């Protein structure tokens, strides 16, 4: 009898189905680990692709994965990986240094258009790849590559042949995909990792990602117990869930993702010169920034689950944020004084520039994104205090994209970024004046201003600097310039809110993607 009682917990735990279910908001565009560029594919890539090393999201230290060891050499110019013995893909075929080499070469081929290639290259140059034996591979750059080890966290090792549902090198593999309905991942029985007791990981048998674009439906299904987690909860849903299932929601504090406004400074045909003169004036941008009530925004739009942003790097990114910077304070009077110095005058309730033009601009944002629509409405109302008239226009994503990246027919835009990494090189293409994502004036041939030239220098220097402390100084100066010039007016960092079923164990949610799922092989139901 005693024995039977002892066995009981085992029997009970065996009875718990080990299928994790949650929602993704759209179809993954592809399963080729080297080609993914949007968040749903990236989630699946993370869960299925094996990597040589993984950055532990709680300690921020790179740890061996497919590589049993790795060594940074030659002052940060080279890195050597030693693979674990007897590695296999999920279909049982062996995984050797030749597979790693093939993966890297395909990623680095400029014609492939692989985002992984961008991660691996130093500027335009590809590293040298040397395979010493089936278990050892070295990458060598011409100059030290900062964070040379960390960048392999996102380099998934691809199988020899790309099929519709390719085999994987990670904890799970894609077993089934029904477009518009779900993606089913099953555990990879050839996965190398074991726990302290020698039990093979992952604990979960399968993961079902249901494609659910409507967040209200996803929330209801979570409440019904059909989903086990919500990786990114909006503030309204968080409050609603907190009332009914308080033990399942968590706020992780400010996220890495900023919400911001910028003005079009590009010499576009559709933008009159006198308006461009306002937008290129730092005083004008400061005045606008100083009149925005960020606290109201956090309280009304995000129900208090947001914090005023200090700049491009979130306060959640403790190492890289410039600690000397504080969020802009509300100072409408100061703003008006700055405008007066630039020749603007407030007559009645209307601000006028030197040429007697009434100050009025349109602010575009994405239609259907409720928080952004509300933020834009609040900004428009706040700027009345400066005598500025703001016309909020919500556009469908295609039209918005066309205006801010192709036709440049817009005046100001309100958007946000989703940062997938805490590293400051993350937004390199935004800050380089030649970058296609240099929001306020993309793809400049030469930097338009001295401060943009300085940012270019700082960005390139930090990307080449091997010593972390030196790099931090460069990044600090960059943040200071962004604050002084405010080409992008930072508003808020919404808090990272998640919901996790209490029955799911082993959860260590973090603000860096993929948040709850970063240690998926350790998750289990009890």
């Amino acid at each position, binding site marked *: 009898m005693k024995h039977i009682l002892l066995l009981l917990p085992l029997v009970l735990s065996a009875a718990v189905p080990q299928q994790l279910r949650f929602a993704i908001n*759209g*179809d993954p*565009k*592809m399963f080729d680990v080297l080609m993914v*560029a*949007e968040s749903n594919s990236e989630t699946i890539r993370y869960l299925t692709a094996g990597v040589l090393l993984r950055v532990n999201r709680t300690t921020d230290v790179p740890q061996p994965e497919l590589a049993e060891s790795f060594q940074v050499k030659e002052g940060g110019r080279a890195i050597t990986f030693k693979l674990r013995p007897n590695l296999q893909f999920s279909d049982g075929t062996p995984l050797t240094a030749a597979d790693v080499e093939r993966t890297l070469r395909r990623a680095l081929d*400029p*014609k*492939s*258009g*692989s*985002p992984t*290639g*961008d*991660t691996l*290259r130093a500027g*335009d140059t590809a590293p040298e790849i040397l395979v010493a034996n089936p278990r050892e591979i070295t990458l060598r750059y011409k100059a030290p590559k900062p964070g040379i080890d960390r960048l392999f966290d996102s380099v998934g090792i691809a199988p020899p042949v790309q099929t519709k549902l390719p085999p994987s090198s990670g904890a799970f593999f894609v077993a089934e995909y*029904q*477009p*518009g*309905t779900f993606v089913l991942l099953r555990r990879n029985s050839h996965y190398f990792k074991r726990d302290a007791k020698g039990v093979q990981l992952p604990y979960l048998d399968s993961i079902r990602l249901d*494609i*659910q*674009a*409507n967040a*209200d*439906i996803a929330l*209801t299904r979570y409440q019904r117990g059909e989903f086990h987690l919500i990786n990114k909860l909006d503030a309204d849903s968080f409050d609603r869930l907190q009332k009914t299932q308080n033990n399942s929601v968590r706020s992780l504090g400010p996220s890495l993702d900023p919400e911001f406004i910028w003005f079009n400074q590009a010499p576009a045909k559709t933008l009159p010169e006198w308006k461009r003169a306002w937008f290129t004036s730092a005083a004008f941008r400061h005045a606008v920034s100083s009149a925005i009530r960020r606290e109201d925004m956090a309280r009304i739009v995000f129900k208090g689950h947001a914090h005023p942003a200090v700049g491009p790097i979130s306060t959640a990114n403790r190492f890289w944020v410039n600690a000397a910077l504080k969020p802009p304070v509300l100072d409408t009077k100061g703003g008006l004084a700055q405008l007066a110095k630039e020749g603007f005058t407030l007559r009645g309730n209307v601000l006028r520039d030197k040429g007697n033009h009434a100050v009025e601009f349109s602010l575009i944002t994405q239609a259907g994104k409720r928080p952004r629509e509300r933020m834009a409405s609040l900004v428009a109302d706040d700027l009345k205090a400066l005598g500025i008239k703001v016309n909020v226009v919500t556009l*469908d*994503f*295609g*039209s*918005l*994209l*066309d*205006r801010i*990246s*192709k*036709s440049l027919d817009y005046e100001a835009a309100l958007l946000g*970024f989703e940062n*997938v990494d805490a590293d400051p090189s*993350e*937004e*390199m*293409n*935004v800050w380089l004046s*030649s*970058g*296609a*994502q240099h929001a306020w004036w993309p*793809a400049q041939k030469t930097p338009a201003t001295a401060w943009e030239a300085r940012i270019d220098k700082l960005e390139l220097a930090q990307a080449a600097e091997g010593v972390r402390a030196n790099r931090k100084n460069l990044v600090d100066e960059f943040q200071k310039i962004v604050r002084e010039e405010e080409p992008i007016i930072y508003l808020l960092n919404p808090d990272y809110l998640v919901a996790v079923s209490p029955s799911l164990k082993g959860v260590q949610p973090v603000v860096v993607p993929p948040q709850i799922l970063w240690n998926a092989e350790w998750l289990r139901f009890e």
Partner: protein
Amino acid sequence: MTPVGRESTFASRLAPGRLALGFLTFIATILIGGFAAAALVRYSPGFDVDEDVLNPHLSPATIAARHAQREVENGLPRFYLRYLARAAHGDFGKSEAFNLPVSELLRHRASISAGLLVRGTLGGLALGSLLAWLSVWPRRLTLELSAVATSGLLLAIPPAVLALFFFFREWPLWLAVALALLPRVFGTARSILEDFYSSPALLAARARGLGSARLAITYVLGPAAPQLAALAGVAVVLAFGSLIPIEGLCDVPGIGQLALKGALARDLPLLSALGLIITSLVAGVQWMGDLTR
């Protein structure tokens, strides 16, 4: 309109000349309508802009390489002619938004939408006609008023909101499609029935003391059948239209949702295929309507 005095017969409707003209209209609608739909997509802002341009992790070279992998044909007439030629062989191209062959997407989703469409249309026709019958036949003011109120209510609620409500109550979604269709059917069915109900033939028969069931079958339902059939055809088109917001908001992976996602992504191959399907449906219903007239 009363049916008395109609001169066209079924035989005349099927005369070869008329059939040929009908067929010509059918084909012309599909060709011109399909081309116009593709043109609207091609010339709307956001076409030919990848969302990759907003991805800060991608270098300009990578964005360019990814863009080159999209099969973008800039000359619209050429694109469309080639598209039609390939479509004739069952190849509708590759969807840019889903990165899958369009024919595969359509095959998978057609069954889901067909279920909603068939049940929704039949349900809408049945409920709408029943309500129309109740508002006309028993001649009771309360019944008529409640029928009018029900129809007015359903006319004012956005179909997608109605569907969402059903979804959260875990009620079948096809019923929402049916209810969205109901007021449209009600309006038409009511007036058709009223016409026959007040026809001199029926009044005369009633004066002869015929029972209501026989009256209804002989003088109303029988003669109204062709018009009710035409109504059924149009109802399919209307129900199809309501699938777009319903499937879009309730995350039903059907053709309607495909249309919505395709539109947001300016997915020309996918939207061209859907354009052909929708024009065929509309033109087919129109042709059928002409034949029954």
